[in-house]
């Protein structure tokens, strides 16, 4: 057995992938992190509080993990889902009825709910340990935007099953937009934006119309939410996450007493 292992690790093929021996010496442990594109998100060494779960709660890491789960399950779901008013519900129904032990949609939905909770708890921990204080002010703000994006990701995804639950939740949510000051047709100040008795802000061109591509939650809204959910917001989230993680490193690592 030992011989076999030795023989394998000596091959050119093995060595071309792994540049160091098993990470059980300080040198190899350092190399394990430095020579791996994913692991090198981490520093070679971390403060002890950084690995203490009762200190970090692991909520930021879990959020990222759940984001990855969402990406993978979401990608699989995209193979079976067509975002039109005619087909969307049927496709979801088919996922439910025709796939034996089909749990992709369940995984996607429960992980999404969990992700909202873990983001909140992550923020809670970061606040309670004062980890937004200098030099981390900027990264706290990146985090705030990521929190908003997480909610938007969840909100846009909520519409896609195209059942009563989905459509009415989004209707209630987006109804707020019509009350936007100046920009929504039922918002304060919108009536001021008129010229010669002609209203510029009305139900057919206000922010809600822009969000929904229509006066109500219809086919246009479904497509718009689908594109934002599958492409737009994930891209923004991924970009901001890269900044977020990079700044964690640059601003002194996982928080701890400075």
């Amino acid at each position: 057995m030992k011989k076999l292992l030795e023989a394998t690790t000596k091959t050119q093929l093995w060595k071309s992938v792994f540049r160091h021996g098993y990470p059980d010496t300080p040198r190899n442990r350092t190399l394990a992190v430095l020579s791996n594109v994913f692991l090198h998100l981490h520093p070679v060494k971390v403060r002890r509080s950084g690995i203490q779960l009762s200190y970090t709660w692991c909520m930021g890491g879990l959020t990222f993990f759940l984001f990855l789960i969402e990406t993978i399950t979401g990608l699989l779901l995209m193979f079976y889902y067509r975002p039109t008013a005619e087909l969307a519900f049927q496709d979801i129904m088919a996922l439910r009825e025709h796939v034996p032990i089909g749990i992709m949609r369940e995984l996607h939905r429960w992980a999404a709910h969990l992700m909202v909770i873990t983001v909140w708890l992550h923020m809670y921990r970061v606040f309670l340990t004062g980890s937004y204080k200098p030099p981390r002010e900027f990264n706290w703000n990146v985090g705030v935007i990521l929190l908003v994006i997480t909610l938007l990701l969840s909100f846009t995804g909520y519409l896609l099953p195209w059942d009563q639950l989905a459509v009415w939740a989004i209707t209630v949510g987006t109804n707020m937009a019509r009350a936007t000051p100046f920009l929504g047709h039922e918002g304060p100040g919108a009536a001021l934006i008129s010229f010669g008795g002609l209203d510029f802000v009305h139900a057919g061109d206000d922010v809600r119309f822009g969000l929904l591509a229509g006066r109500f939650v219809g086919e246009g809204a479904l497509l718009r939410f689908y594109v934002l959910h599958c492409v737009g917001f994930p891209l923004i989230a991924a970009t901001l996450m890269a900044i977020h993680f990079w700044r964690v490193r640059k601003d002194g690592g996982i928080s701890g007493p400075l």
Partner: protein
Amino acid sequence: MADYIKHAVNWLTEPTRYFIGFTLAIILILQFRKFFAKTFVIVAFFVLGAAFLVFAWKDPNFAKIIGKPDNVPIVILLATVVYFSWLSLRKAVINDERIARGEPTLEGDFNKQKVFTWPDLVYTELICLVLFTVALVVWSIVLMAPLEEPAELARTPNPSKAPWYFLGLQELLVYFDPWIAGVLLPSFIIVGLGAIPYVDTNPKGNGYYTFNERKFAIWFFWIGFVLFWVSFVILGTFLRGPNWSFFGPFEYWDLHKLEPMVNVDLSTYFWVNLLDQPRPDNILLREAPGFAFLGAFFLLLPPLLAKTVCRSMFAQIGMVRYQVMMHMLLWFALIPLKMLLRWTVGLKYIVGIPEWFFNV
């Protein structure tokens, strides 16, 4: 479960009592944190909570609302927020004692040493990842994702609820118009969160749990997050039924439950009740009392507080930071203020100009 307990729970969770009870609980917990940080407190909470859940589950109304697939996360939210609040409080209490004795904090003591990312951190991450994957798979097999009838815009469900994480904001619609509850307040929450690190100039408590060194900040976040966000989400999910009327957890969701709505604008109180004359036709004159109130609230209160209660804070953080913080806090304070006025004198709007969609 005995009927009198159900009635007691239904009575207790009525929004006014629910909110006041929650507020008192937070005040008690933070004031007597040394007691509440003890281990048996959290054990007792979860044992009693689990026992309550088991017994309450036999009630069909309770099981129907708590067992809704999309409501399971709210139970998780409640459990995790309680647990982590307790955990942070416990660490803060221990740290405060250590600081008082002149010792380093728990985290400070720990951080003299550094550990290798591989294996210590990488393995922790791997274990978390595996556990969560297993949990998610089990959850997904046991519970099916909800799917209702196909979308039909001609049929409005009652109640129509936003996704659960926005139900705290939807609950605010009871007290405010959409332009405040749905647009202004969320925007202020985002901006206010972003402003926190620039407004909070207290250099202490960076990187460890503490209460004594950051009293105001910790109070603020407990009230803001636990009370106004999490408790409102729970209220909006479990205790609001058809027509957004209140329903106790053991109450049947009766479509025809009527709640008397006899709320009155401030302008009516001022002109009709106080001066005994009809309200003036001129909108601005009619609403002058409301504008005066809001003007005093937003413009007079900050300088007044800066000269009195918040004198030392004002001196510490300076004019710009103080103004930003005060205005965020005042908007925040408008929520409980309006709630109290609604409950006590049935106030509808402070400024009510439905003609311009301008109601505060």
